[in-house]
């Protein structure tokens, strides 16, 4: 099976990113990015959450299965969580999830965890931009899987 061939065929260059953003910090930063009229790729969607700790790893997995090529979880700085360090737990969980994604080859590169304050709008844009660049050479998850399953060797 020519894995690289399928990779090339299913890489679209516009990765789709789902962002879970804490509404006490990351989302405020994102708002400032908007007011600053930055230019970002249009293929990301934001789901506001109350705290990064609220994001279930299951939701991340569900998003990866439902068309997202990457998932970003954005919360407050460690120690700066509105909910008393709840985001430490988020960090540990996402880190463990990254190991699992690595094991099956999806790769933790598709998962981003970032910490910022409400004042760090520029960081939001930079982090997101870097994440897009990271995902660009990767195949589209859904298309790749579909192509792979249709390979004769899999039948």
């Amino acid at each position: 099976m020519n894995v690289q061939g399928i990779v090339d065929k299913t890489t679209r260059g516009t990765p789709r990113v789902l962002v879970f953003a804490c509404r006490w910090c990351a989302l405020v930063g994102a708002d400032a990015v908007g007011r600053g009229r930055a230019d970002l790729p249009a293929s990301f969607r934001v789901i506001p959450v109350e705290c990064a700790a609220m994001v279930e790893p299951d939701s991340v997995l569900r998003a990866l299965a439902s068309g997202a090529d990457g998932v970003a979880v954005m919360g407050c700085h460690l120690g700066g969580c509105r909910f008393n360090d709840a985001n430490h737990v988020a960090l540990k969980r996402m880190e463990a999830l990254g190991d699992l994604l690595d094991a099956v080859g999806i790769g933790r590169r598709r998962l981003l965890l970032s910490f910022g304050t409400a004042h760090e709008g520029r960081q939001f844009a930079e982090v997101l931009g870097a994440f897009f660049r990271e995902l660009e050479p990767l195949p589209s998850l859904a298309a790749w899987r579909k192509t792979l399953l249709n390979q004769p060797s899999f039948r």
Partner: protein
Amino acid sequence: MPGVIAILCRCCGQIEPAVDLQALRERIDREAGVVSVEVRDSLCLPEDGAAIVKAVESSGADRILLAACSQYGKAGAVVSALCARGIDRSRVRLVDIREGCAWIHRGDRTAATAKACDLLCMGLGFLRYGGCSTDAVVAVRPECLVAGAGSAGLAAAVSIARAGFQVHLVERAAEGGGMLKLISRVYPTDVEAAEKLRPYLEEVERNPRIAFHPKTRVVSATGFAGDFKVRLASATGDVNVRVGAVILATGAGVWLPRGLYRYGELKEVLTLMELERRQREGKTAAKRSVFIQCAGARCPERPYCATMCCPSSIKNAVLLRKADPDAEVTILHRDIMTPGHILERYYRSALEAGVRFVRFAVEEPPMISGEGHVEHVEVFDAISGVKREIEADQVVLSTPLVANADNAKLAELFHVPLDDYGFFREDYPLHPLETRQGGVFICGSARWPVSSGEAATQGEGAAMKALAILCREKLSARSMSRLPEGKLGHARIEDGACSGCGNCVAVCPYEACTLQRVGGAFVSRANKMRCRACGSCTAVCPNGTVQMPEHNARAVGAMIRRAFAEGDAG
């Protein structure tokens, strides 16, 4: 069948250059459940409010999808205004198509329109499943527990009693006063400590609203803001009290510098507290005194400055000079900690009174020499760069305050966090007297070492915070939030589906989830008064039994599944 009305805002031309609102309108109109789509020039101007309500009413819709600017912009206020008219918050969903779409994707109109469409569809998905938490209301007990009868505790207790509420003032010792009983005078006013204390103790004695519990400890506590059940134990028996708020003002302990600077070996090496006792009893005859600051503070074991030691030494140094103008008094210090205008003036008054200040470097601490009694103190004067030998009759070690060992117990009982040094820790610097637990407030040196004056200020501040709860008859769970509209909701645990694994209990930062035994098995229950709606529990529940109705998994799942639906089609 009731449905959704979608109201799209043009934002006076801010949206349309990037997003094709007409196409969006047609696309959303086709979505199941949408009964009406409106496009308006603006939503937030004073004249728009009534028009929006009219549009909603005439459409017959029971849920509203707003596509406008972000929740931090004017649209947030529009949502609040709609809610203020009695529309349930879970029935309004705001989608940000300005800051989050039109303003950042100006280059690609197709992609931006597709994104706006996805965002609206996500909003529709959310509206379909979003729920609303039921509120809980408790009757507030018009009483307050104040733990500790030192400067902070006395100020708090007296204030609350004066405001008309019953106070239970619990003190470990036989009488109130705390640190003020141990010292001679109070800086920076140099008023006698007993003088300062007397009106407080008289009021505790006199005011029928203050129940003083001496030689008493708190042994158990349950409950939440508005209704704590606390058990107090003393030699005369246990008492149960029910209070609406709790103020922790247990003060701090003194630290004995055993082995440091020959303390315990030479009898003229004293701690500050011992000097205070001698001052109180008028037994200070030393002609030549040397104070050593930071004795056991700002060191690896206690890496903090205890705030009150520098001014206390200055106070005593000046008092010694005043009592005997010939007395030689030297303060050896690393930094003189007298912030602010009052203390800085106090420091200067010591200089004027002839107190000598010698700065030493932490690497070269002073040495006390003498056989059997203090003869002199050798110190390397860092400022002039010379070694000095100061003759001394007594050496006073300025030791820091340390956290009470009892703090750990109280912290566990009231679910209040401690800091690295064992003092009670506040929530944010901006809310210095409030803790993670609603209804539990901290003040005085139990929070962080402070002067008696500042402790009293904090005690009054904590009393004010407690009064804000006591002043009402009923307290609702929804109101236990910093936001006017109430918190996002609170965790709800479905009966019958909880396996009792305890994950939610382990992660809850507010101890809102607890395990209860039902039959032979455990199930978790969420306390609405304590829950702050962070959602930590919902993320660790293995089968999704814990949910926050306002942000439940089904609603989020609907958003996730629709996040890229239009992007794919396009």
